Each structure stands twice: as structure tokens, then as C-alpha cells.
């Protein structure tokens, strides 16, 4: 076969330019640490990566949301604990009050303590979170459950017992609030009012006081079961976060498999490309210097 000058130059040059292109892609990969230099390098992987990125972002949001509800429940936990402590103190006071042998002064003391308990209970029922939202008003978060009008306690008719739901996974919402019913606020306040009235009177109606104490015991039960409920919700959130974290790790691993460059493989390739390029260059230089004209 006849090989012209331009033909042999063309063969050498196209070989060198291919090696150069391969080298430049490889350097780009090594620089970025990623296998894909552009999405067409692996269309399927690029679509999977888009989906994984979305999954990761969604999960991060779900974890944030779950942590928010957990904070909210922890706040409720503090509040119910203070209600429970208040109820325990009321219990002691009422037991003392039910015990007939006590002086006028003792009763005044008990009444003062019960009144202060009532105030702190009210403050708890009217508690707010860091956003300034009332904790026990259902979804009417701008409405205080209770207010005082000329010494009379008034329950706000605008509050409700609606659930406030937060999304914690695809299509899964979780209730994130407690209502005044959950902490038995109504009967606690009635019980305290009755107790204060009876113990404040010169002739307390012991039967009414006994009934108030029974109510108190049932409130303690109710609040304890609410506390257990809070605990179980927090557990559920932690489990959800755990699952999300696992999924997150899995997505990260998949992402790594799809896009991370193996440096071992890359450096092997680098060596072989460099060798090929050097060989082509040397051959080119040698062949170019061969000419019959040198013999003339």
C-alpha cells in the first residue's frame, strides 16, 4: 500500500489527539474525584444521581421536622411534669385537709398554697412555645385557653382540640400537639376551685372535698398516661429518625458508588495513557526524521 506523507502524519496526529483527549478527561476526573465529567458519560447514573439527591434532601427535611416535633413533645413533657408535680402537692394538701384535725391557721395556709398552685397550673395551661404559640389551644394557637375576668376564670370558647400534624415521612404525618383535655385541665381547675372554696369556708363540706380528692386522683392517672403517651411519641420519632438516617447513609453509599472515582484505577490508566502518548510521540519524531532526501 502506498502511504503518503500526509497520511502517516494524520495517523500519528489522530493517535496523539485521542490520547490527549483521554488524558484530559482522566485529569478532570482526578481533579474532581468523580467518575462522571458530564451527564452523558453515564446517562442512567446521572438520572439515578438526580433522584438520590432529591431523596437525600427530602430525608434531611423529614429528619428536621421529626426533630422539631421531638422538641415540641419534650416541651410538653416539661409542662406535664410540672402539672404532675402540682397535682402531687395538691394531693398532699388535700389529704391534710381531709384529715379533720387541723387548725384554722392550717387551713388558711393550705388555701394559700392551693391558690398559688392554681395560678401555676393556669400559667402552665396557658404555656407557649418558642414561636409564641399557645401549647394547649389545639390549632387556635393565638388563643390563650384561660383568662381571668374580675377574679372569675373564663375558658376561651375559641380554642379547640384539633390535631396539628407535621409530615415526618412520605405521606406520613404525626400529631405534634396536646390539648387541655389531655392534661385534664378542666377537672384540675374545678378540683382546685372546690378545694379552695371548701377549705376556705369555716364549715367545709367534707364529702365535696372527698369528691375533689377522688377527681384529683383520676387527674393524676390521666396526666401520667399522657406522660406515657409523650414518651411513646418521642420513641416513635426516634425510630423514624433512625430509619431516615439509615436510608440517608444508604443513599450516600449509592451516590458514592455511582460517582466516586477509584483513584487506584485512575492512576493505572494515567500510567498507561502517558506510556502510549510518549511512545506515539517518539515514533512520530523518529519516522519524521526518516527521509530519502537525507541520502541525496
Amino acid at each position: 500500500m502506498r502511504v503518503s506523507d500526509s497520511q502517516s502524519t494524520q495517523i500519528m496526529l489522530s493517535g496523539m489527539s485521542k490520547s490527549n483527549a483521554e488524558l484530559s478527561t482522566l485529569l478532570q476526573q482526578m481533579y474532581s474525584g468523580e467518575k462522571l465529567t458530564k451527564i452523558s458519560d453515564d446517562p442512567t447514573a446521572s438520572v439515578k444521581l438526580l433522584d438520590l439527591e432529591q431523596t437525600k434532601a427530602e430525608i434531611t427535611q423529614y429528619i428536621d421536622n421529626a426533630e422539631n416535633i421531638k422538641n415540641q413533645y419534650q416541651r410538653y413533657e416539661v409542662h406535664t411534669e410540672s402539672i404532675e408535680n402540682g397535682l402531687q402537692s395538691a394531693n398532699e394538701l388535700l389529704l391534710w385537709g381531709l384529715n379533720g384535725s387541723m387548725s384554722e391557721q392550717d387551713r388558711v395556709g393550705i388555701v394559700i398554697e392551693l391558690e398559688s398552685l392554681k395560678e401555676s397550673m393556669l400559667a402552665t395551661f396557658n404555656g407557649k412555645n418558642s414561636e409564641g404559640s399557645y401549647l394547649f389551644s389545639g390549632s387556635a394557637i393565638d388563643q390563650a385557653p384561660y383568662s381571668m375576668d374580675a377574679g372569675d376564670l373564663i375558658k376561651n370558647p375559641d380554642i379547640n382540640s384539633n390535631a396539628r400534624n407535621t409530615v415526618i415521612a412520605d405521606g406520613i404525618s404525626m400529631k405534634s400537639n396536646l390539648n387541655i383535655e389531655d392534661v385534664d385541665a378542666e377537672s384540675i381547675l374545678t378540683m382546685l376551685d372546690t378545694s379552695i372554696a371548701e377549705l376556705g369556708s369555716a364549715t367545709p363540706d367534707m364529702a365535696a372535698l372527698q369528691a375533689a380528692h377522688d377527681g384529683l386522683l383520676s387527674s393524676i392517672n390521666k396526666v401520667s398516661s399522657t406522660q406515657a403517651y409523650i414518651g411513646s411519641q418521642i420513641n416513635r420519632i426516634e425510630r423514624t429518625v433512625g430509619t431516615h438516617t439509615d436510608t440517608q447513609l444508604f443513599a450516600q453509599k449509592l451516590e458514592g458508588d455511582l460517582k466516586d472515582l477509584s483513584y487506584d484505577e485512575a492512576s493505572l490508566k494515567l500510567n498507561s495513557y502517558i506510556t502510549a502518548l510518549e511512545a506515539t510521540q517518539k515514533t512520530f519524531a523518529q519516522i519524521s526524521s526518516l527521509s530519502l532526501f537525507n541520502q541525496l
Partner: protein
Amino acid sequence: MSIYNIALSGVNANRTSLNVAAQNIANVNNEGYSRQQAVQSSIADTNSVGGGVEVANISRVADEFIISQLRSSNTELGNSSYSAESLGQLEQIFSFDGFNISTGLTQFFGGISAATSAPESAALRQQVLADAQSLGDRFNGLSNALLEQHAQIASDRETTLSNSNALLENIASSSQAIIELNASGRDTGLLEDERDLMLGELSKMLKVNVNKEADGSLQLSAANGQPLLINSTAATLKSTPLAVDPSQADIEVTFNGALFPVSSDMGGELGAMQAAQQEHILPMLTALNEMAATVADEVNKVLAAGIDFNGTPGQALFSYEPADPARSLTITSLNANELAFSSDGNLGDGGVLDDILTIKQMDLPISGLGSVTLSSAFSALSGKVAIDSRQAQSNLESHQELFEQIQSARDSLSAVNSDEEAANLMIYVNAYEANMKVLSTANQMFNTLLSAF
């Protein structure tokens, strides 16, 4: 015939051959040059041994078949290289983080999802506004980038058309020269090489049917038979932008005052330009427009059923120009308190947020993609660009390889080999000197003859 004349014809013929070798050596790096060969033949003389030698003709070593293969390979190469380049640009646009609609959607719905934990939170509401604006920005940015490429292709088309017109003019005048030289029996090799190069260049831009005659006359026509050139008369290619879209155009050929519309597939670069616009960019813009309009309409519809922080019925969050949704998608002037997240008027209620979140999972009809969720619509578009670009690259590679093969076949036959020319140089110099020796021998013989008297 005398020995003098025979030797002189040998000197002359070999000098011509040396000139041809010199011409070949001089043109060793001239792309498209076809080497020449001096064909020597002996001069017959019936009365004696013969009349010596002459250069019967100087032939141009070229193969019309290979040259025509090279032209069609040029057409394919021009087509596939423009396609690969324009898809490569599309692919870059789609990989740009700031144009990632999928991320924009994830952030927007993420903001909505975050708001479910405290719909009354001013910070979270503000975040929803910011995410909505950024989603709009992404749609605007992506569709602007696509429209810019659309316009870039239009300007490439204009440049290519004016280049083809200039080439057609040059080919016409070159053809005229070839025909005239041929008629007067002179060598046209160099002009033909030049014309073949120009035809190759023209073939890169559009598919050209070539009809060449031995006398040098030439007829060119476009893929569907529209006349482009007859001998020294060239046609003009002209584009008329479409009224509905100035970046697209109808292309017409004007030949001798007559107009011929050029049909859709012109082949070459011009064909690739049309394909890039009609098969890639425009369907993509349509899909993006539908996505933008859909996300805006669906979100607005759900918000309309809600009640905002001030107790008034919900207003639209997104707005867009119906003629151009993706490029104009933005948020309305409503403030964070006017986001109607509550389904019953209670400030802590986030029922509407749940409804907005369902839009994320909804299968919505998008042209060319079927019924898909919004974010999978974007991955589908991006995946399509990636696959098409990959396809275009491998097309380009195979056409490049084919072109190189044919170019190599052409060069193998027609290009100069300097070793060969060096050998020719030696051979013809030797022959030249030998003939000179014959002359001096004849001279000696003549002197010997003279001295006998």
C-alpha cells in the same frame, strides 16, 4: 532520426519529469493537492530505431469515486459534529446546579414540609416565599439558557448560509475557469483540486448532489433536487424568519430568479441545526412551560381553598405569562402572612400544606413525557439530554473514523510521498545525465569524423 535529436528529447522529457517531481515536492503539505505524474512515451519513427521520447501528458492522480465518498462523509461529519456540539451545550445547561428544577422543587416542597411543623412560624413562611421565588428563578434561568441556545443556532444558521453562498460563488467562477482551460486543452489539475476542496467544504454545510462531467462542467443540487449551481451560475440560499418564532426560519434557494423552498432535511450542519431546534430545544421548552404552568396552577388552586393569617381567603402564590410560563414564572406580591396555609382559619392549622405536598406525588400530563411527577419530569428531560448527547458523541466518533478512513484512502492515492519523489528525483537526474552523456558522445563521434579529414 539523429542521435542528437533522440538524446535531446531524452534530456527534455526527463527535465519535464524533474519539474513534475519538484512541483509534487513543493506541494507536499498542500491539503487537497493531487500529485501529478509525467507519462513518458517513445516517439515512433518508422524509418529508423525511433524518434526518442516525449512526455505524452501530465496526469493528475485522483479518483472521482473516492472524492465523492469524501464529500458524503463530510456531510455526515458536519451533521454529527454540529449535533454533538449542540447537545454537549444542552447537557452543560442541564448539569448546571442553578438550573436544576429538581432541586428547586425539592427545596420548595421541603419548605412546605418544614412549615407543617409550625404553620404559624413567620420564619418558615418567609422560607416558603424564598423557596418559591428560587423555584421560579430556576425555571426562568433554564428556559432563558435554552432560548439563548435556540437563538445561537439561528445565528449559526445565518453564518452558515452566507458561507455557503460565498462558496457557491467561488465554485461557479472556478468551474468557469476549468471549462475554459479544458476547451483550450490546458491542464486543469490544480483548479480541480481547489474546486474539490470547496465542494467538500460545502458538503459539510448541507447535503449536495454533485454531477461532474469530464469537460469540467458541474451541476449541484440540494438534497431534494433544488438547483444550487449549473456551471458558472450559482444559486443563493436565503432564510426568512418565522413570524411565530424569529429563531426558526424557512430556507429558500433563488436560482436564475426562480424560488425553490428547501424541504426540512438539508443534511450537513444546516440539517443538524434544524434537528437541534425542532427535536431537542423546542420540545424541551414546551415541557418546561407545561411544568411551570402546572406547578403554579396546582399550588395556586390549593392555596385558593385556604385561609391566610389575616383570616382572608387564599391568594395565588405563583404568577406567570400564559404565553411564556417557564420564562416568566415568579411569585406574586403577597407577603408571608398572606400565605393561606390554614384550612379552617385557625392559625395553627396546616391542612393546606398537606394538600400542597400531595402535588409533589401527583402524576401530571407533560408533553412528550406522559403522566409523570414534576421532579421525575425534570430527571426525564435531563436523562434524555444525556442519552441523546451520548448517542451524538458516538455518532460523531464513527463518522469521524469513517471520514479519516476515506481521507486516508484519498491520501494514499493522491497525496505526495516525499520518499517516492526523492527516488523520482534520483531516477530522472540520472536519466537526464545519461542523455547528456549521449549528446557529448555524439559530439565526440562527430569530432572524430571531422578529424579524419
